[in-house]
């Protein structure tokens, strides 16, 4: 596996440029970060707080001339650690973080489609609950668009382990969802 990352060039031409890059990153990564944090079990408000803290940290990191390598995985790692610090209770950490609103699936769909969609989501939810925490985290980061190497940096595990974990998780989902 090559594990190539999508480089995010950050010029070293001064604070204004750093600020501009941070703004671009905010626009690009805010939503994937929020989705990842909600997937980990945070509430929407908590996720917003963690994302704000992460970008504040990024701003300070850039202004203090910190390393500009792999900024994307750096942001996700800061957000990941921020989320874990907030998840101190057993229930919130090991509960069922992904819980979709099945009643909201009705926009522009026929009753039959709604029933089928709900059933599919229930099946997927059941399969996701059977995944290990590590498998869920890998899939969430993969869904956020991170490469295996970046996922490894966020979770502090080797890239090869990420590949094996993602492979195993997708196969489990495919099998259990019967898709």
């Amino acid at each position, binding site marked *: 596996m090559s594990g190539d990352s999508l480089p995010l060039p950050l010029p070293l031409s001064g604070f204004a440029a750093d600020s501009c890059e941070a703004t671009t990153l905010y626009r690009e990564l805010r939503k994937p970060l929020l989705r990842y944090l909600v997937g980990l079990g945070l509430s929407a408000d908590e996720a917003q707080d963690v994302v704000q803290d992460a970008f504040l940290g990024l701003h300070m990191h850039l202004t203090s001339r910190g390393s500009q390598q792999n900024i994307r995985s750096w942001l996700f790692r800061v957000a990941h650690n921020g989320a874990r610090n907030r998840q101190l209770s057993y229930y919130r950490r090991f509960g069922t973080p992904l819980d979709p*609103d099945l009643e909201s699936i009705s926009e522009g769909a026929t009753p039959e489609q709604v029933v089928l969609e709900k059933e599919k989501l229930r099946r997927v939810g059941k399969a996701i609950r059977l995944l290990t925490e590590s498998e869920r985290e890998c899939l969430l980061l993969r869904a956020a668009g991170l490469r295996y190497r970046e996922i490894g940096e966020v979770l502090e595990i080797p890239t090869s382990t990420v590949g094996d974990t*993602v492979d195993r998780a997708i196969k489990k989902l*495919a099998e259990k969802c019967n898709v």
Partner: protein
Amino acid sequence: MCDFSGKLVAWMDRELSDDEAADLEQHVRGCPDCLKNVDAYEQASRAFVAYCDAAMKKKTRRRLPHWVPLLSSAAAAAVLLVVFQPASVKQIPVRPQVADASPAIILETAPRAVKKGHRRHAIATMKTPNANWGMAEPTIQIAIPVEAMFPPGAIPEGITFLAELSMAVDGSVQGLRLQQ
């Protein structure tokens, strides 16, 4: 199961080197099992993302309007009044005007919170079905200014609301209905 089955997900994620990806692509084109698996894995990936999006949608759903907790608090206060019945509260039994209508007790506190003839106010009414006059549960009317429930300008002048709510034993609101 063919030798390439362990690399299909990595290939889908473009995580293989160019040489490996070219070899695998050539193989998948001629292998029905791998084609079927790739399709299943892609569907599983899409289902996972759709599930996450649905979960996100639920967690970012709009919360209850601000006036609902206010109304609940008012209702809870009303229950306390009923339970403790302080000395300053005067009970006035009201005879039903319609023969089959349930009788009620209206509790009034002095001084009244809202002047008579107030232009705009909402009345929150708690009603419970009454079986007989002797054991009748009270009906309470609470006047809450519209300005306290809605932002300024949200409700046109001259509009009043009748709020009907039912309450549980613990004081929580079970049902709420606003009528204009």
